[in-house]
């Protein structure tokens, strides 16, 4: 027996009741559902099947005659997809726009036409079309107010409703659903919406957003009274009242009673050059957090190093024909240089091939062995007698053992012929990859760590520690525990590694994953002999360990390393915050170290884009909660729109005004409500910033910084100090206040930027003549950082524009694999393009430096660099025999000589200066517009001239 479950006052329930009344079904009705169902109403056809979409339910209860099926369906669709959403949208939102009103009227008038001279929508009797539309319109019809508002001009509808209402089936349904009080209007649609959970989003969209759910790119600009008062209060304090920033000691040690933050980033494997994904995943993320932590005056130690032992190093050494040690030395240098260029502020960047590693790994192994968490088991392995070594999977080849595949050169781990996984000992006719001899199967005894025995300890620990982890780390660790831990083999028959400190096993070394995390301890020891203060702190000292990594490293840090430390039972510091990122993709594919796809640490440097911009972009797209991708065009857009036009623009405007109008001294400020409003908004962002960084949500932090400068730009635009400067005394004081407050906000930004863009931050601090101030994470406020009378430095632009064409060039240049690129570079075609780009960029830099009017001492070296680059470009062009000299560029049909072009260039530069000066001086648009036009004409001429010169050889090549 079918059952209708619904609620009172809901037009959708009315629909089903009416259909039921008109049909012969006579379902039972329940209008007081006791369990909270997702949807109301719904029709239970049987115990397992509910129809919860009302129109489907009435279609089932009262099917139309086949000839009317299409027409009925059309009306039902109109009712559910157009009429109902429009009514809900128009009547339930708390802002009533004229537009939504018009929408309702428009739809009702359309409906009205269809009812002309008709008693029913379709044919000569009641169909579900009438039932659906009637039910939905009824509350509107019955509300006196709404009826007058919307149904005034709909005579046909009114007539139709009146007739329909009188039918006994309808009368009964209405009394069941609405009882006596039918005049419910909007309330009824509220109930409909909530019961169907439908068009929820639209409703939420109209609601004024809450502060914490606000879209971060378009912050709300309303502040509460409390926020205003707090901002006012904070501003009355001077920067001198803040605690001083601690000097970074030579050796940082934890202190009792203070916050001691210990930060590691996953140890990069030494056999390759790190790519951007590696950099953002560990070292860069850890660096931002470490810099932030130092700004909070915490005792902060940040260490990292290269992971050097293992098969992969041996393979690489064979490949390059070097010894393992030489390979490690070579790549250690490469890693170290790259991180240096990226300004990673390690307290120590070490390596796992240090003597401390041997000592500590052996020590920890013995502790675990003594505590009974190790056991030995024999394992079958291939051994090459000639080379006197056990062959790791990659060192053995042979016939594929998989049935149906006759591939002869299958590797020990996988067959390239059929793609299936291979067990090395099952290979047919195995041979040693190094000498080609047939290896023999030998059993050797290996150590296993008894993770099942450690599992209870680990489970207990994870329960306490995991609340501080990033979500993916938590999920991955729990997935491991859910599967149950298995013993893991920790030794290998290799040569390049830490030897096992037991006589019978002295020819074996520890497997890389056992040994690698111990690197954290050994690198600390290489940094200071007092390393135990960090790793085994005294009871009165609390050390908080943060470990940054990409998600593939989580099992080692969440399960294996903690198990080892817990098993040793010596009170080692264990991680409390595992901060794991997802993966960064390259354009639309994957970064790959082994295949050389993507942008690598050393490539980044060669693009000529400053490391700060790289840092900014990588952090901006940090794959925090899901994979994200790196894209050249996005990099350029973000640089130009966010850094240049938003952040750089605001800071530069503030400082240039202070220079031109107040002689580089912060003017007297008399703050009004508007100014406090800005401070309150910025305080809100500052709070967001510290809250985000406390949880290492680095991506959010950047957005708060950008929001602050966005507020700043708006504030300047609204207050127009350039106009007020020309006014009377009162106006001038107002202009001074606006510029003074803006400089203060710039000073705030200088510190907030420090973790993200250290070079930019110090550049800005120099321009402001200020220092970093201490961040108070518990209660961040904006005090008066730069008081009136403070002497500022010389302003200069913080960022330079990157041309979108440059993005295309770079995209082409870094397409394919690293190997392809090297081959390409042998033809110096590429070099010319690169040099040209560099010359252009350096030229821009020199020009902007000169135009900002800084000292010659500053721009002179840059000019030198420019000249050098130009020289190189000339040389490169000579090598390549292009008919460059024969082809003269043509402007408007006229041939231009090199000299004429030079003249043109000069006049462009000059005109550019004129325009910039005018704009900076705050002149009216009517004044600078004609000058801009002149500049554009000149630039066009130049582009035609040089453009044809540069493109001519390319065009020729294309035709071949």
């Amino acid at each position: 027996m079918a059952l209708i479950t619904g609620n009172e006052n809901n037009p959708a329930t009315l629909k089903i009741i009416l259909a039921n009344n008109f049909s012969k079904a006579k379902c039972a009705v329940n209008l007081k559902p006791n369990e909270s169902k997702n949807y109301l109403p719904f029709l239970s056809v049987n115990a397992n099947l509910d129809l919860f979409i009302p129109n489907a339910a009435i279609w089932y209860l009262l099917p139309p005659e086949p000839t009317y099926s299409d027409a009925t369906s059309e009306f039902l669709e109109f009712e559910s997809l157009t009429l109902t959403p429009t009514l809900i949208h128009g009547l339930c939102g708390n802002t009533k726009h004229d537009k939504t009103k018009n929408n309702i009227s428009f739809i009702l008038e359309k409906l009205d036409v269809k009812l002309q001279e008709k008693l029913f929508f379709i044919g000569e009797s009641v169909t579900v079309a009438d039932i659906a539309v009637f039910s939905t319109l009824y509350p509107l019809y019955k509300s006196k107010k709404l009826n007058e508002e919307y149904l005034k001009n709909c005579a046909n509808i009114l007539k139709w409703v009146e007739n329909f209402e009188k039918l006994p089936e309808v009368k009964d349904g209405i009394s069941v659903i609405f009882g006596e009080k039918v005049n419910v209007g909007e309330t009824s649609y509220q109930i409909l919406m909530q019961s169907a959970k439908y068009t929820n989003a639209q409703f939420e969209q109209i609601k004024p957003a809450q502060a914490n759910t606000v879209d971060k790119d378009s912050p709300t600009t309303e502040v509460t009274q409390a926020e205003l008062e707090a901002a006012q209060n904070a501003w009355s304090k001077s920067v001198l009242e803040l605690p001083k920033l601690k000097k970074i000691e030579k050796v940082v040690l934890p202190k009792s009673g203070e916050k001691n933050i210990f930060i590691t980033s996953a140890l990069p494997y030494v056999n390759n050059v790190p790519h951007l994904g590696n950099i953002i995943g560990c070292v860069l993320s850890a660096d931002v957090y470490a810099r932030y932590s130092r700004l909070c005056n915490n005792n902060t130690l940040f260490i990292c190093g290269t992971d050097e032992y293992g098969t992969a190093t041996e393979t690489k050494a064979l490949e390059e024909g070097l010894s393992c040690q030489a390979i490690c030395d070579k790549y250690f240098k490469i890693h170290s240089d790259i991180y240096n260029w990226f300004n990673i502020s390690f307290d120590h960047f070490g390596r796992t091939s240090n003597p401390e590693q041997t000592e500590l790994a052996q020590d920890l192994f013995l502790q675990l062995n003594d505590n009974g968490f190790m056991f030995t088991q024999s394992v079958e392995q291939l051994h090459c007698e000639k080379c006197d070594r056990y062959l790791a999977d990659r060192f053995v080849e042979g016939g594929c053992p998989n049935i149906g595949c006759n591939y002869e050169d299958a590797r020990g781990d996988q067959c390239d012929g059929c793609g299936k996984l291979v067990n090395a000992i099952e290979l047919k006719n195995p041979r040693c990859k190094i000498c080609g001899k047939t290896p023999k199967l030998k059993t050797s005894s290996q150590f296993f760590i008894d993770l099942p025995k450690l599992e209870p300890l680990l489970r207990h620990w994870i329960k306490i520690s995991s609340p501080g982890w990033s979500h993916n780390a938590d999920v991955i660790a729990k997935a491991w525990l859910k599967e149950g831990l298995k013993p893991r083999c920790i030794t290998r028959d290799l040569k390049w590694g830490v030897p096992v400190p037991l006589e019978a096993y002295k020819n074996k070394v520890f497997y890389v994953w056992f040994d690698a995390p111990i690197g954290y301890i050994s690198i600390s020891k290489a940094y200071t002999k007092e390393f135990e203060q960090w790793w085994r702190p005294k009871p009165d000292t609390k050390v908080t360990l943060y470990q940054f990594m990409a998600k593939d490293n989580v099992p080692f840090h969440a399960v294996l390393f903690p198990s080892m430390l817990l098993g040793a039972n010596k009170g080692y510091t264990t991680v409390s915050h595992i901060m794991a990122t997802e993966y960064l993709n390259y354009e639309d594919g994957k970064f790959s170290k082994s295949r050389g796809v993507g942008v690598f640490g050393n490539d980044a440097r060669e693009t000529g884009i400053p490391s700060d911009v790289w840092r900014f972009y990588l952090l901006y797209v940090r794959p925090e909660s899901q994979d994200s991708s790196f894209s050249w065009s996005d990099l350029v857009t973000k640089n130009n729109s966010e850094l240049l036009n938003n952040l750089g623009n605001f800071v530069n405007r503030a400082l240039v005004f202070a220079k031109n109008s107040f002689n580089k001294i912060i003017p007297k400020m008399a703050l009004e409500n508007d100014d406090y409003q800005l401070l309150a908004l910025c305080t809100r962002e500052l709070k967001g910033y510290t809250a985000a960084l406390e949880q290492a949500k680095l991506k959010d932090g950047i957005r708060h910084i950008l929001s602050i400068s966005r507020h700043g730009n708006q504030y300047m635009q609204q207050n127009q100090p350039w106009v007020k400067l020309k006014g009377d005394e009162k106006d001038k004081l107002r202009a001074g206040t606006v510029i003074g407050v803006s400089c203060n906000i710039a000073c705030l930004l200088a510190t907030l930027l420090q973790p993200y863009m250290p070079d930019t931050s110090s550049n800005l601090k120099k321009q402001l003549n200020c220092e970093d101030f201490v961040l108070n994470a518990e209660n961040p406020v904006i005090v008066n950082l730069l008081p009136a009378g403070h002497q500022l430095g010389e302003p200069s632009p913080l960022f330079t524009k990157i041309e979108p064409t440059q993005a295309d060039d770079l995209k082409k240049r870094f397409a394919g694999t690293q190997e392809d690129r090297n081959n390409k570079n042998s033809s110096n075609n590429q070099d010319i393009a690169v040099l040209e780009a560099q010359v252009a960029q350096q030229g821009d830099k020199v020009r902007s430096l000169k135009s900002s009017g800084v000292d010659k001492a500053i721009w002179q070296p840059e000019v030198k660099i420019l000249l050098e680059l130009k020289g190189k470009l000339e040389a490169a062009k000579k090598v390549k025999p292009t008919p460059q000299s024969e082809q003269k560029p043509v402007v408007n049909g006229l041939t231009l000589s090199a000299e004429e072009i030079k003249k043109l260039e000069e006049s462009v530069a000059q005109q550019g200066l004129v325009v910039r000066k005018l704009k900076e001086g705050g002149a009216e648009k009517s004044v600078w517009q004609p000058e801009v036009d002149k500049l554009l004409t000149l630039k066009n001429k130049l582009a035609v001239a040089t453009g044809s010169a540069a493109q001519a050889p390319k065009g020729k090549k294309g035709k071949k």
Partner: protein
Amino acid sequence: MASISVDYFNNLAKFLKIPLGKISIKDNVCIRTHDNKTTIGVINIIFSLLKESKLCLKPNNHLDEAQMRQWLEYTIIYLIHNNQNLHSTFKDLNEHLETKTYLVNEQFSIADAFLYYVLVKIMINLSPLDKEKYIHVSRWFDNVQQDSTLRQSNNLINFNTNYLATLVPAKH
């Protein structure tokens, strides 16, 4: 509010191996013109495609038809029109699919096909964690996407989260 796109009809017609004719969308109302016949409304169009197709996907009885209508309307309202609150919709859909292999009875229907074409664009961007969170949606989706005639040019979406086990082998 997003609106319905012609792509969905193209996909369905291709899957059903019939010519689509011309689809026009005006004021949120879809109109199909084919063989001098005009069909109005998304659900009407989909049923008209079904009628013309040789594939046996027509509803067996009246109850099946009502259920198909239910899921088609559900997909349009909650997934196409209302795409700003996807997480709550996914949560809800996940509950619906908890006890189901297919949307209507234990049989593949046009409602599954339609839902597939709408979801495929969303599933691509779902993180592995979300796929796991909406496990029943993932299971349903992975099941239906195996049919290559349904999938057409879409790629198979990966639902394998078992990459962990390969990182540290239990034995070597």
